[in-house]
């Protein structure tokens, strides 16, 4: 029998950090394969993480493909498996299989201005692109990151974002004004409009709540971005990751195979069922 496509590799948790506290807290986990080598991935791809006895969930890989030692995942505590993940400690062993889905065409973007527009936990899926671009800083022109959360406490990757400031423009926002917050107040799409990024030789990559993505795309279009210059990622309920279990499709596409990365030019051709 060939490789069992449903059998996960074992991976040990080597690092846990709480990014956001509260009811829907977010924690970042790093996992390393228990038995030596793990699979390689590209920016934007996902992996199925397991806790045996609880189940599996599809999570985007938040670390750059250039990082070989570990894979990073930022997981919001919303469901059965993610809640169990939040109870894990460094040293615990979980299951991982992947990588699944397509990836951001980062190589095609060399020499361009990159705009990253994230909201909430939507920073994680585009984080590998940001870190990859920063690691190859000379290959790209301006790198700009827009990112917002509901409140200052909902901002993830705080320290990492601060570190980015040296090599990229970082525009943070929170939905509502709050004491001690001196950056932008308002929703992410408005922050984008406020800064008026130029569509010239640019690519915009956005990920966040569906409603945010909708307005971000609307705003980018009004700023002159062509459909081909706008990229986003879809998420859907997934069980197999292999285009077989049948639930993550949008029209003819299984998001786990043809997605999660779509240019707006591609996405707008699909039925609106996500």
């Amino acid at each position: 029998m060939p490789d069992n496509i449903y059998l996960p590799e074992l991976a040990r948790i080597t690092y846990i950090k709480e990014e956001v506290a509260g009811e829907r807290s977010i924690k970042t986990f790093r996992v390393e394969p228990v038995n030596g080598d793990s699979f390689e991935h590209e920016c934007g791809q996902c992996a199925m993480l397991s806790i045996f006895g609880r189940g599996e969930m599809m999570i985007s890989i938040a670390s750059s493909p250039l990082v070989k030692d570990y894979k990073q995942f930022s997981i919001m505590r919303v469901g059965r498996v993610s809640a169990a993940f939040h109870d894990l400690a460094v040293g615990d062993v979980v299951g991982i299989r992947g990588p699944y889905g397509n990836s951001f065409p980062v190589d095609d973007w060399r020499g361009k201005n990159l705009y990253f527009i994230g909201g909430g936990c939507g920073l994680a899926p585009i984080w590998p692109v940001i870190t990859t671009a920063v690691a190859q800083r000379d290959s790209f022109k301006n790198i700009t990151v827009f990112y917002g959360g509901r409140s200052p406490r909902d901002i993830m990757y705080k320290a990492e974002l601060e570190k980015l400031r040296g090599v990229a423009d970082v525009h943070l926002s929170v939905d509502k004004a709050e004491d001690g917050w001196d950056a932008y107040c308002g929703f992410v799409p408005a922050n984008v409009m406020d800064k008026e990024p130029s569509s010239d030789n640019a690519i915009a990559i956005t990920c966040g709540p569906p409603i945010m993505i909708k307005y971000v795309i609307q705003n980018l279009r009004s700023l002159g971005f062509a459909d081909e210059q706008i990229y986003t990622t879809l998420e859907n309920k997934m069980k197999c990751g292999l285009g077989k279990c049948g639930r993550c499709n949008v029209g003819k596409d299984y998001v786990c195979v043809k997605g999660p990365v779509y240019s707006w030019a591609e996405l707008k051709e699909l039925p609106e069922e996500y």
Partner: protein
Amino acid sequence: MEKILHKERIDDWISALTGWEVLSPALEDGIWAYRPVSGAVRLDHPNTTQPPKGLAFPQREVFFSFEQIKGEAPRLTQILPDTVQRAVFGVRPCDGRGAVRMDRVFGDHVEDTYYQARRKNVAYVGLACNQPPSANCFCLSVGGSPVSTDGLDVLLTDLGDRYFVAAVTETGKALMTAANSLFDEPADADRQQLKSVHTEALAQPQRAVHNPDAVPAKLKASFKSPLWEELARACIGCGICTFLCPTCHCFDINDEVTGSAPLKGNRVRTWDNCQFPDFTMHTSGHNPRPTVGARLRQRVCHKFQYFPENFGMPQCTGCGRCISECPVGIDIVSVVNKVVEHAG
């Protein structure tokens, strides 16, 4: 390889298939189902309630078992399918064509290890439909035919007191060769009769999807049609249509815990169903297909639009089970026709 088999010899043929577990349709508890052969085989069934797809894609498949002592790493043990060779007699051409479609789903992109391992051990000995076995047959509308050999290893055609036996694949030839002496060479008269039986079979009236070639485009244009909710209004959201379908392949994967301290259990694949409300529901509660209309649209568009877009053929094989068994009379032929008609 084409032969004649006198009907009374079919049991001898089956007995000669050493190394094969042979299944044939049996009427048990009021329903027709494929059962291991015991006693005489008479292929006089309509169609079975369930297609034979479960032989390659069982409703429950265990991938591996896990065991974890608290504080230690889990131990995984792969569970692989059995390697019994199974020959299924009396498979209708629509279900043979169902297998072709399942093969694409589980073979393209990446091969599904479990499906492939089982599938290569299954042989289908088909039976041409001289008469439509159900009032809701519509194979001709979806590119099939009552005498199609697609997906079959052997096709039997009932010629009254004997079968015309045609091998379709190498496996089929092997099944016939295993009992060579039972078969006769077909005479010209046999071939003549075969031809006329097939011609008659093709002329039998069936339900019809109007203008089938136009269907994918019309469905695409009708995605936002309010008709979907209207047509699905009576839908009760059960799983009959998909669980009885020869081509529905959706599944769920769950961990079934069988013990704690140490934690023990299995990771299990079970059939799942796009008509269940929670099928696509995100963990957040957001559901891309929140209504019966959206779910009916998914089933119909998957069969008649998405699958053709991906694989160049409709997924539906026209067996009519979903129509015959729907508790409230939702009828895929009529649904497709109405949506297409409405699209203008």
